[in-house]
C-alpha cells in the first residue's frame, strides 16, 4: 500500500496508508487528516480539497486539467504553481511516499 504524507501549515506531518485507485482526497478523509474538507465529495466542484504537491513530487502527479484549473480559482488560500485539488490525484504505486502540503484554509 502506498504511503502518503500530509504536512500542515504549522509543520505537523501525518502519514496514512492509501489504496491504489483512491484519490489523495479519499485517503486523507479515510485517515482523518485535518485540513481536507472535500465538500463536494470529489466532484471537482468545491476547491476545499486544495493541496500543494511537494516540489520533487510535482512531475509525478502531473498537471491539472482545464476544469481543475478553473475550480482552483475558488480556493480559499493562495494558488501556487504546485496547487492541486487532491480529489483529482489518483493514487498509484508510483506515488508511494508522496508528500503534499496543506493550505492555511480551505473555507
Amino acid at each position, binding site marked *: 500500500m502506498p504511503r502518503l504524507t500530509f504536512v500542515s501549515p504549522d509543520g505537523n506531518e501525518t502519514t496514512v496508508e492509501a489504496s491504489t485507485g483512491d484519490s489523495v482526497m479519499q485517503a486523507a478523509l479515510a485517515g482523518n487528516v485535518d485540513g481536507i474538507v472535500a465538500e463536494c*465529495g470529489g466532484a471537482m*466542484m468545491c476547491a476545499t480539497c486544495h493541496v500543494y504537491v511537494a516540489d520533487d513530487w510535482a512531475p509525478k502527479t502531473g498537471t491539472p486539467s482545464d476544469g481543475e484549473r478553473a475550480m482552483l480559482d*475558488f480556493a480559499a488560500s493562495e494558488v501556487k504553481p504546485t496547487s492541486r485539488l487532491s480529489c483529482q490525484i489518483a493514487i498509484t504505486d508510483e506515488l508511494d511516499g508522496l508528500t503534499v502540503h496543506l493550505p492555511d484554509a480551505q473555507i
Partner: protein
Amino acid sequence: MSFAPTDDTITIDQLTRDPYSVYRRLRAEAPVVRVKSIGRTLLTKAADTRAVKDNPALFSNNDPNTPMKRAFQAHTLMRKDGAEHMRERMAMMPTFSPVNLKTIWGPAYEKHAAAYLDRLPRNEVVELFSTLAGPLAARILAEILGIPDATDEEMQFWSQALIDGAGNFGYADEPFKRVDGCHDAMNAMVESRVPLLKAEPDQSALSVMINADDPIEFSQVLANLKIAIGGGINEPRDSLLTVLFGLLTNPDQLEEIKRSGNWSAAFEEGLRWVAPIQASSRCANEDTQIRGIDIAKGEIIMTAQASANHDEELFEDGDKFNALRPKTTHQSFGSGPHHCMGTHLARLTIGKIMLPMIFERFPDMQLVEPEKVVWWGFGFRGPLSLPVRLN
C-alpha cells in the same frame, strides 16, 4: 433479497412536529426504512446519507416524480446530473468566489445588517423572524442575484411560493396557482435588468451568467436564479433564529463564546442542531444495496441530513445545543456535487458578521417566553417566531 422494512405508523404530522424523536428510533431500529406516509425509503444514519449524496453516478438528482418541475416551470440545475449540472452550476459560481465574498458581498451585508439592526426598537418585544432574519436574508440575496429593485416582501413571497410549490407532493391547486402568479413578476424583474447589466456588468449572478463567453440558455438563467431565490432566504433566516435561540437559552455557552469570539462554532452548532433543510431526495439509477438492504432501480431515497446530524456514532447528546462541543462535521449544507452553493456566503454573513454584531449591539438581549417558540417543518425546519427584548 432483503427489502427495507415498511413503517406504516409514522405520519407526516409527526415528522413535521417532532422529526427528531422519530429519527432517533429509526437510527436504532431501522436505519433503512420504507415510510408509507411519505412513499419513500428513508435513510437516517450519517454514513449512509453522505455516501448516497457523494455517489451521483448511482444516485441521481433527477427524481421524475417531484412537483418541483411543475412549480418552477423548468428543469433546474438541482435536478440535473453530470456534465449538464456542472455547466449550469459553473455559470453561477463566479459570483460566489472567495474574492467576491470578501470584497463585495461581505461589506454589502455588513452595511445592510447595521441598518436593519438600527431600525429595531428597544425596550419592547420585537419579533426577529419578521423584522430582521427574513428581510435581511432577502436584501442581500436580491443584490447578489442582480435584482436589487426587488423588495424584501417580494423576495420573501416569491421564495415561499417556490418552496411551497416544489413541496406540493399532494398536487393541490393553491400552491401551484400562487407560484404561477409569481413567475411573471420574477421574469419581468430579471428581464428589466438584462440591458443594464449587459452595458455595465458586475459580479451579480444574473450579470455573470448573461455576460459569460459561452452563456447558458436564458431559460436556464431564469430557472437557476429561481432556485437561488427559493433556496437562499429560508435557510439563512432559520439558521440565524436557531442559533440565537440556542445561545439565548444557554447563557453559559453564550458567555464563553463572547469571551472566545468563536461565533463561527456557534453558527455551525445551530446548523447541526436543527438543519434548515432537513432532507434531500435522490433516485437509484440501478439496483443496489444500502446496509445490506436491497434498493431497486427507480426507488426514491430520502436522505435525512437532520438525522445524520444527531447520529449517536458521531455526536454525544446530539439533541442538545452545545456551541462548545468539539469540532465535528455536520451535513446541513448537503454534500457531493449538489452541495450548497451559498455555504461560504452563509458562513461569512451569519457566522462572522451578524452574530458578533447583534451581541455587541444588544449584549443583554432576552428571549421572551422561549417555551412558547414553535419548531416546525419536515423538509425545511426552524422556529416560527423569535420574540426578544432588546436594550
